[in-house]
Structures are given as structure tokens and as C-alpha cells.
């Protein structure tokens, strides 16, 4: 299977900056993956996101080196409005990405911009309203909704364009933990049911990890770790992003009792692991 996203030796420097924001990024992402992208602030995560839907180099000028192919399109020669059909982008602040007077108009906005015929537009808006449980809120102005609902509308409005990829740049940063969990759950369903590839930038690993099929860590514009969350979290590189307590506990158990198990990602996983150890399964306790 050819990768859906392919980056080869990508370097990018913003106009007027000396240091590159991305340094030698090589990346292949397959269809249907749920990629969690993390790293300290200023590590190049947002830059990478912008690159995937063509905001770089079309909106943000600068020096781009290397090859970036997304869904078979070269981002250099494809304008952002064209990329919008392939890559949906959700930003951190819901307020800045909702501009319409009602939820249904918000969902129709992208379709309008791309000149869809009215009957096709109506069909897609209805479909999305139902799928996202927003039918009752269709006439509500988005700015009157809660943060969680706003982010849901933002996701719904890009799903209307039927992209193969959704890139989310810290979508839960302004949300309370419960709403954050709901949004991540929603993304996980989209990934599983519709095979939509998710690229999620998130700092709160403890709530996002269980949905991810892959974890990428960046630092100073470079990719320093890439693999399944269970493997990456045990590496030394993972320490810069703050390892979830569950994993810390496992690492301590592993060191102290010299045992190896599948890395737990949730408190539930950890409880199971401790239970099996207490029962004396395998070596150890």
C-alpha cells in the first residue's frame, strides 16, 4: 500500500527566521492510522500540520526543501483551497474557526466556498448534522455553544468536505477534560468507521494515548521518536514530553521485578497488569 502522506528530507524555514522550523523530516503515514504528534512547545508540530494542508508554503512564505506528497498531491503545486478537499484542518481555538450565524451554515461554508451545487450541499449538510447529533442545534449560532460543542461543529464542518485526512492542532487545549475525552472519542470513531486518517497534536498524553495507533515525538524541528505508543513511551526520548504516570509505574515495576509486559496505557491496563502479577502469572512477584 502506498502511503497517504509522504515527506522526504523536508526542511522549512519561515520567512525572516534564521533557524529552520523543520529539519530533515522523513515521514510516511498510511491510510487509517491514528497518529499522535507531540513534543515541547516550538518543536515544529504546528509547522508540520500547516505543511500537510498547504498553508505552508502558500499562506506562510519561507524556504521549503524536500518532497511533500499528501493524498497523491504535491503541496507545492496544489493551493490550499484544493487541499481542503483532501485534508481537513481543526485548530486550537474554536472561536477563530467558526464565523457563521448558525451551525448548519457553518457546516455548509466549505461546500459553498468550493462551489458545490445546492442539492448536493443540502444532502451533505443533513448527513453531517445527523452523524454528529447536531440536528437540534442547526439554527444555533456557533459562538453560543460550549467549547466542546464548538470543536464538534468545527470537525463536522470539515467532514462535510469528505477529506481522507484530518489534522488537528491541539483541538482540546481549550476544553475541560470531559469534553476533551468526547472529542477524542469522536475522532477515534471517525478513524475506525470511515477509515479517516487522523493526525492529532496533543499534550495531554494520558487521555489521548489509548486512541492512537502511532506516536511521534518532535524536538527542535526534528522527529526524535516514531512508533507504536507502547514502544515509544519506553524510550529515553519520550522523557521530554512527560510520561503518563501509568507508564512511569510500569517502568518502575519492570525495573524492580525484572519483568516485561505489554506497556499499559490506561489505569485499566495497569490494574489488569498488577492483578495478573499478583496472581503470580509469569515470572516476578
Amino acid at each position, binding site marked *: 500500500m502506498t502511503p497517504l502522506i509522504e515527506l522526504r528530507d523536508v526542511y522549512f524555514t519561515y520567512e525572516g527566521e534564521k533557524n529552520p522550523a523543520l529539519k530533515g523530516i522523513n515521514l510516511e503515514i498510511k491510510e487509517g492510522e491514528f497518529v499522535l504528534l507531540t513534543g515541547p512547545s516550538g518543536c515544529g508540530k504546528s509547522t508540520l500540520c500547516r505543511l500537510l494542508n498547504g498553508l505552508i508554503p502558500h499562506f506562510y512564505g519561507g524556504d521549503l526543501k524536500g518532497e511533500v506528497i499528501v493524498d497523491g498531491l504535491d503541496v507545492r503545486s496544489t493551493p*490550499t*483551497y484544493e487541499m481542503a478537499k483532501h485534508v481537513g*484542518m481543526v485548530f486550537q481555538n474554536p472561536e477563530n474557526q467558526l*464565523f*457563521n*450565524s448558525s451551525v448548519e451554515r457553518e457546516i*455548509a461554508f*466549505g*461546500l459553498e*466556498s468550493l462551489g458545490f451545487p445546492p442539492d448536493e450541499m443540502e444532502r451533505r449538510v443533513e448527513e453531517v448534522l445527523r452523524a454528529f447529533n447536531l440536528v437540534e442545534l442547526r439554527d444555533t449560532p456557533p459562538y453560543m455553544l460550549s467549547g466542546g460543542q464548538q470543536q464538534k461543529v468545527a470537525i463536522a464542518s470539515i467532514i462535510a468536505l469528505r477529506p481522507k485526512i484530518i489534522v488537528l492542532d491541539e483541538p482540546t487545549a481549550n476544553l475541560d477534560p470531559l469534553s476533551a475525552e468526547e472529542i477524542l472519542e469522536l475522532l477515534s470513531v471517525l478513524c475506525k468507521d470511515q477509515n479517516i486518517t487522523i493526525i492529532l497534536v496533543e499534550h495531554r498524553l494520558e487521555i489521548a494515548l489509548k486512541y492512537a495507533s502511532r506516536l511521534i515525538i518532535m524536538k527542535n524541528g526534528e522527529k526524535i521518536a516514531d512508533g507504536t505508543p507502547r514502544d515509544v513511551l519506553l524510550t529515553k526520548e519520550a522523557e521530554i514530553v512527560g510520561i503518563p504516570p501509568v507508564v512511569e509505574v510500569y517502568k518502575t515495576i519492570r525495573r524492580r521485578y525484572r519483568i516485561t509486559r505489554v506497556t499499559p496505557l490506561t489505569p485499566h491496563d495497569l490494574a489488569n497488569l498488577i492483578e495478573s502479577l499478583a496472581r503470580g502469572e509469569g515470572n516476578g512477584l
Partner: protein
Amino acid sequence: MSMLEGFLYKPKESPLHKLDPRSKAVILVFYTVTSLIYLDPIVLILLLLSVVLLSIVGKCVREWSKSVKATLTFALVIFILNVLASPGLGYTYALAMSLRFLSLAAAFSLYFLTTPPEALALSLEAAGLPRDFTLMLTLSLRFVPTLARDLQIVTDAFRSRGLKLDSGNYVERLYNFAKLLTPLIVFEIRRSLMIAEALESRGFGGAVKPSLYKPPKMSLIDYMITAGGLVALGVIVCYHLGFPQ
């Protein structure tokens, strides 16, 4: 501030609120043209009275009268200036000038009180105006509350670091308020960049002409009002220019 409030849309159920912004705009043009070509205080007073009647139909007398009250001061200034500047023309002329201003302000205030801005933008777009312009209109109105909150955030941040905004004389206060401007402008430029990013990501600025989801529809009454307004406008203009013999 209360004067500006008189121009902000208040959602209500009234026949005036139900009309299409376009048919109401025809009536507004009729009022504007009539008050600009007639200098007879009687005609202008009749115009003003008809706006009063319309504001009763539109169920927004209170909000409307607020904006009219606020414009009264300006009307008075116009009256005094006219009396002083052109004494030869007399009090009637000065009265007509201030009544003209008053009736224009009253008509526009009523229009904006009963027309949701997004409906106005939508009907403008349906009438063929490019989306760049209509979006400018909707966005500028949509982000007014956001801007007010941003100002509050910046003010709070400065106050908590000891900036005095409530004490001192006017000059000091003005000087201290000016200090809020730099961070606020930086804040808003950054926000506008984020909005632009989001717009681009949703396909805005594409090569095709944007289509309209649920374009506004004119009702029979809208068509009748538009036709009536246009006829009245034609009659007034012809009468003023002198009917062709």
C-alpha cells in the same frame, strides 16, 4: 455607546423583521432620496412621523427612540451651525437641515434594528456582491464581542500589574489607556491570522465562484413592497425634476 446600540439588531417577531433585507432597502432608499430632495419641514416631519409608525409596527419603539434621542444633540448642533453660518436663509432652512439629519438617522436606525446583519450579508451576496465583501461584513460584526472580551483580558492583565485606569485626571487616564493599545493590536493581528488560516483551510478563496446554501427568498409581500417602493421613488423623483411635458 447608547447611540450605537440603536443601530444593533434586536431579534423580535414583527412584520418588519420578517421582510427581506432587499425590499426593506428599497424603502430605505425611498426615505433617503425623499429627505434629500425636499427641504420643506412639513414633508420632513411627515417622513419622521411615518418612521415612528413603522417602529411601532417593528415593535422596537424603545430601542429606536434611544438612538433618535442620541442624534437629537447632533440635530441641534446642525440647527445652530446653520443659523450662524447662513443667516440669510432663515430659521426654516436650519430647521429643515436638522430634520433631514434626524429623519435619515431614524430610518437607518430602524433598518438596522430590524435586519439581522447575516441576512443582510446573505441577501447582498444573493444580489451578486462578491463573497469577499459580504464576509467582511459578517466577520466584522461577528468578532465585536470577541474584541470586547480581548480588551477586557488586556485591561485585567495590566490592572493586575498595577496600571491605574480609574484614578488620576483625564490626561493621565487617557495616557494609561493608550498603553493598552499595543498589546491589543498585537493580539488582534494574531487572531486575524488564525481566522485567515481557518478560512483558507475551509476552501475559501478558491478558483470557483462560491455557491449559496439556502439562498434568501423574497415573499409575495416583499415583491409588492419592492414594486410599491420603486414606483413611489419614481414618482417623487419625477415630481421633483418636473414631469416631462
